């Protein structure tokens, strides 16, 4: 046996003996045999970007014993101190397999902090090297949203430009929107049949822009209905939407010169729960038999229950929504449907107010801009330059 071989044997025996002892100890303590896990490495600490301070971001490379599955490492403990020598206090614990986290636990701005990540298994732990110092700062601008800001500015500018041109009296063309052309006719046929018209302004809140778009259409509908001396029934899902609807309908009757014909009890609250609301509106449709049903605003699964019940009463139905999932059902069960953006165009289309028409033109220009972006993006992407595409990343990381 060579010297090296003898030495190897000696070491092996020692290790064997050692582990036997360890095993013995372990058995006595009824704990599994254990060696401390290898530490997490490459700990990097930095101020969390694009926030209002009070946060530090940590990232590290996993311990060599953290391989996923039922391995040695159980968790990592994040410890923090104001000095590199400690004392370190535990801030939080993250599960194995995690290699980054943020510390938001009472982090003071502009104060130096030092961190270490402690790798833990069932019975022992190994600290990483200390990283730092790091300071949390307040950022006054969220660079990650720079692209959003630019788009917002561009879009606002486009809209304002066309609105100002419209203000100067420029004639603006708007194409036909069948659903809106049908609106007057549909509302007009209710009085001919001696029946009321029903208007459901969706089942969302007033903070939802779709609801406001609906309220705008309601305003025009109310005026037409008042002209014909018909009842307009408006059941509501949200009390605030109800108050707004009442104002708008009353205003419509006043504009038509018939304030006395307005009945506040026809614009009422039902309940803020989806299906009871539908049950009640279904009841109204089969009992009052409105000649026209208008479902305009935000809708959910109940859309088809409303539209099918309405169809069974033989009413003319016009729907409009930006709820993409509900469009197929309205299209199947209603006579006309305002699809997505058409709902928002309705206000301008119906009122022909130049300011509103101007904004439609702005929207179209934005679409052109977008199609342009898509083509530029495709060309650059397919010649192997991905930089243009990454301009549309959220959050934007290109400038970091």
């Amino acid at each position, binding site marked *: 046996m060579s010297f090296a071989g003898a030495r190897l044997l000696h070491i092996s025996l020692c290790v064997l003996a050692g582990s036997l002892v360890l095993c013995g100890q372990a058995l006595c303590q009824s704990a599994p045999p254990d060696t401390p896990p290898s530490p997490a490495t490459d700990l990097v600490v930095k101020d969390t970007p*694009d*926030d*209002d301070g009070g946060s530090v971001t940590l990232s590290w490379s996993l311990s060599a014993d953290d391989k996923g599955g039922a391995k040695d490492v159980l968790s990592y403990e994040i410890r923090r101190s104001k000095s590199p020598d400690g004392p370190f206090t535990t801030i939080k614990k993250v599960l194995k397999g995690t290699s980054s986290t943020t510390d938001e636990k009472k982090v003071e701005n502009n104060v130096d902090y030092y961190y270490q990540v402690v790798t833990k298994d069932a019975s022992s732990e190994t600290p990483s090297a200390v990283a730092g110092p790091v300071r949390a700062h307040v950022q*006054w*601008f*969220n660079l990650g*949203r720079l692209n959003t*800001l630019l788009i917002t500015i561009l*879009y606002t500018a486009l*809209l304002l430009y066309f*609105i100002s041109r419209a203000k100067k009296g420029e004639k603006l063309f708007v194409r036909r929107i069948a659903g809106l052309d049908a609106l007057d006719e549909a509302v007009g046929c209710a009085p001919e049949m001696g029946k009321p018209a029903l208007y459901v302004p969706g089942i969302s809140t007033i*903070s939802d*822009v*779709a609801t*406001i*778009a609906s309220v*705008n259409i309601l*305003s025009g509908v109310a005026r037409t209905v008042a002209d014909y001396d018909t009842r307009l029934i408006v059941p509501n899902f*949200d*009390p*605030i939407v*109800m*108050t707004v609807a009442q*104002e*708008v309908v009353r*205003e419509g009757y006043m*504009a038509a010169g018939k304030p006395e014909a307005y009945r506040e*009890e026809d614009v*009422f*609250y*039902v*309940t*803020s729960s989806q*299906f*009871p609301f*539908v*049950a009640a509106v279904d009841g109204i449709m089969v*009992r009052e038999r409105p000649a026209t049903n208008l479902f305009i605003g935000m809708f959910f699964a109940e859309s*088809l*229950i409303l*539209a*099918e*019940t309405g*169809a069974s009463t033989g009413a003319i139905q016009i729907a409009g929504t*930006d709820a*993409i999932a509900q469009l197929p059902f309205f*299209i*199947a*069960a209603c006579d006309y449907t305002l699809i*997505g*953006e058409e709902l*928002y*165009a309705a*206000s301008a289309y119906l009122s022909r107010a130049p*300011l*509103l028409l101007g*904004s*439609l033109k702005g*929207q179209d220009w934005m*679409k052109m801009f977008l199609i342009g972006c898509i083509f530029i993006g495709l060309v650059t992407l397919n010649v192997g330059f991905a930089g243009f595409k990454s301009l549309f990343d959220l959050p934007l990381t290109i400038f970091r």
Partner: protein
Amino acid sequence: MRRQVPLVICFVAGVLMLAQSFVPPLNWFYTNALAWARIISCIAVFIGLISLVRLHATKVRRRAADWKFSIITLLALLYMMLAGLLTRYGVFVKLHGQCVPGSMGDKIVTGFQNAFNFQDIFLNIQIPVQATMFSLLAFYIASAAFRAFRARTFEATLLLVAATIVMLGRVPVGHYIWGVPQATAWILDVPNTAAKRGIMIGIGLGMTSTALKIMLGIERTYLGIKD
């Protein structure tokens, strides 16, 4: 005062909301405004309640059609309010961030003394009726498909064909027909995605343009004030 103040409030709230997404120190406005809006909505429920009670009380008083049923609505409303707000059990108990009605601490209240309590009424009335109303859709989706899916025009034919293929592709029976599962996946992944994206972009533009007009006071119909 009556016209200008709301427009100013609207503008300032809108600008603050816009600004907070670019200026991190203004983030507080986002969290608070959402909470405030929720609180205002909740207080406003009281207005809804008055409207509901007034509507049904009027029906009862005038002996209008179905006035007897209006009594049921009023009684149910009253009962739920009393049971929910006044019961000594406190019927609502906070459980992991979400209030679970009808529980006392961790133990669900059951038994006769609570057969008509808040939770049981919710369980035995609200839940089954809600589920049944929802399930009416199975019937309506069939009758709508029957009526609407006629090959009247080219577009209607497309609607019909796409719907039929996907409908079959979703269930075991469709897997007996060659090509249907593949066609279903393709329709959903390619043309469907493309069209949805077009609609989404349109909605994005329409909604943001309307929102901007609202903020700037160009769109103010909602105030019920005409220029």
